[in-house]
């Protein structure tokens, strides 16, 4: 970036486009009776997923005589589910979220997520709505064919001729080598998920969503995150992701409402954190209480707004759609 560091790294036309897209998103949800909400950026609890790192900051003041660690949220998911359990009905939020350790051409440690929840929707119906929103926002800017939907298994079979649910680590490693994917040192011998992530990011992602929205659904149970499991052989997570032009754009769930199952997943993630020498995070007991009180059947999705602006503006780097990314913050 050649311009002086005090200047924005996005040009003004792109910043105007950002503002226009924000307005259109709000209009889209207003027309559908989805309520805009705001939830705290700072939280006493934090996400436990080992691959998400929360920023922590000390609070000292009234109510906290000895100082208290607060975490910047990585997504507004937990408090939004508390609102749903409290009877909010369908809700959305434009949230500035924070993820430590993530910076690059497609990542900034601080970015904008559009997150929304639809009561009574399942993953299929929510994918329909994601398609309507993204297609409307990109109309006139990107020519898109009919969207495609592939299961995680179909995706791996089509691109790499591998069954992600049934293949051993050794076979995944051989598959990577066969497709010319460099294998990083220190990959685990007893955990398939990092191998699947490697194959997905290096061998598949660049080809996804070329000229159309590509939805991936039915993830391995080990990657269900906060999605329900659908029994079967094997059981799969009712999770979906959206890709466009090789960019991961959105992640959605048919939301898990079982408080006991959610607690088990949080605790298992903290065990995995401890094993990797990562800090163990305080569980969100308020979320677990809300789930125990009853989360309405719903589906939710988080969409990376900055990446959507990248696609709309035809920019290659996230820094080109933000006024002041990390390097200039």
């Amino acid at each position, binding site marked *: 970036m050649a311009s002086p560091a005090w200047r924005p790294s996005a040009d003004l036309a792109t910043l105007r486009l950002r503002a226009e897209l924000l307005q259109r998103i709000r209009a889209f949800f207003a027309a559908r009776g989805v309520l805009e909400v705001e939830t705290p950026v700072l939280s006493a609890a934090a996400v436990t997923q080992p*691959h998400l790192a929360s920023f922590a900051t000390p609070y000292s003041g009234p109510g906290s005589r000895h100082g208290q660690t607060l975490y910047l949220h990585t997504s507004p998911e937990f408090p939004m589910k508390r609102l749903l359990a409290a009877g909010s009905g369908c809700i959305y939020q434009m949230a500035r979220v924070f993820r430590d350790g993530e910076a*690059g051409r497609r990542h900034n440690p601080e970015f904008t997520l559009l997150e929304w929840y639809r009561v009574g929707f399942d993953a299929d119906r929510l994918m329909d709505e994601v398609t309507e929103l993204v297609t409307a926002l990109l109309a006139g800017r990107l020519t898109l064919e009919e969207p495609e939907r592939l299961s995680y298994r179909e995706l791996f079979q089509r691109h790499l001729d591998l069954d992600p649910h049934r293949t051993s680590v050794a076979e995944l490693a051989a598959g990577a080598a066969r497709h010319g994917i*460099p294998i*990083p040192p220190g990959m685990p011998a007893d955990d398939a998920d*990092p191998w*699947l992530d490697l194959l997905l*990011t290096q061998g598949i992602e660049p080809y996804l969503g070329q000229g159309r929205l590509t939805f991936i659904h039915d993830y391995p149970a080990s990657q269900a*995150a906060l999605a329900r499991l659908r029994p079967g052989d094997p059981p799969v997570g009712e999770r979906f992701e959206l890709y466009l032009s090789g960019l991961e754009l959105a992640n959605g769930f048919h939301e898990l409402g079982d408080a006991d199952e959610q607690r088990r997943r949080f605790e298992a993630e903290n065990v995995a954190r401890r094993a990797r020498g990562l800090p163990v995070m305080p569980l969100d007991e308020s979320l677990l209480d809300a789930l125990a009180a009853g989360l309405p059947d719903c589906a939710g999705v988080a969409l990376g707004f900055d990446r959507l602006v990248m696609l709309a503006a035809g920019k290659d780097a996230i820094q080109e759609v933000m006024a002041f990314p990390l390097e200039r913050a």
Partner: protein
Amino acid sequence: MANYSTNEFKSGLKIMLDGDPWAVVENEFVKPGKGQAFNRVKVRNLRTNRVLERTFKSGDTVEGADVVDVELQYLYNDGEYWHFMDPQSYEQLTADAAVVGDIAKWLKEEAICQVTLWNGVPLSVAAPNFVVMTIVETDPGVRGDTSGGGGKPATLETGAVVRVPLFVQNGEVIKVDTRTGEYVSRVKE
């Protein structure tokens, strides 16, 4: 040597891979929203110049390579080794044909060259961009032809052969661009 985390990777950083020194050319952070983060890195082998892609788990560390560029004075060639000297410390270093490579023909005694050292030993030698040398052999040109078109071969004092205009004569001193191997101009002694 210090270890470097993938978070410190940037263009030009020298690292050790498979026992060889490499320079980072490009570094891209790749991460699925809910999965393992990787750094996809393009590296250049400082010995062979071969470029390839490697992938690391983000946050992993790699040993740094002790590679530095120094200005050394070329002294002489003994038939097998090229001898250089540090003009400050007078320390002498030698390099073989594998290190000096194609640029040997541009090395004139007493010239200052940039030498890349790995663990204190020469890894590669860069010729100065321009050298000034005497022509030791060239056919007599046609008098009056100053067009520069066509030209003729001329052998320089180091054995290098360059094309020179027809009017340039045996014994004259010329300036050559070593990056292209082309004649630049005559030089008045």
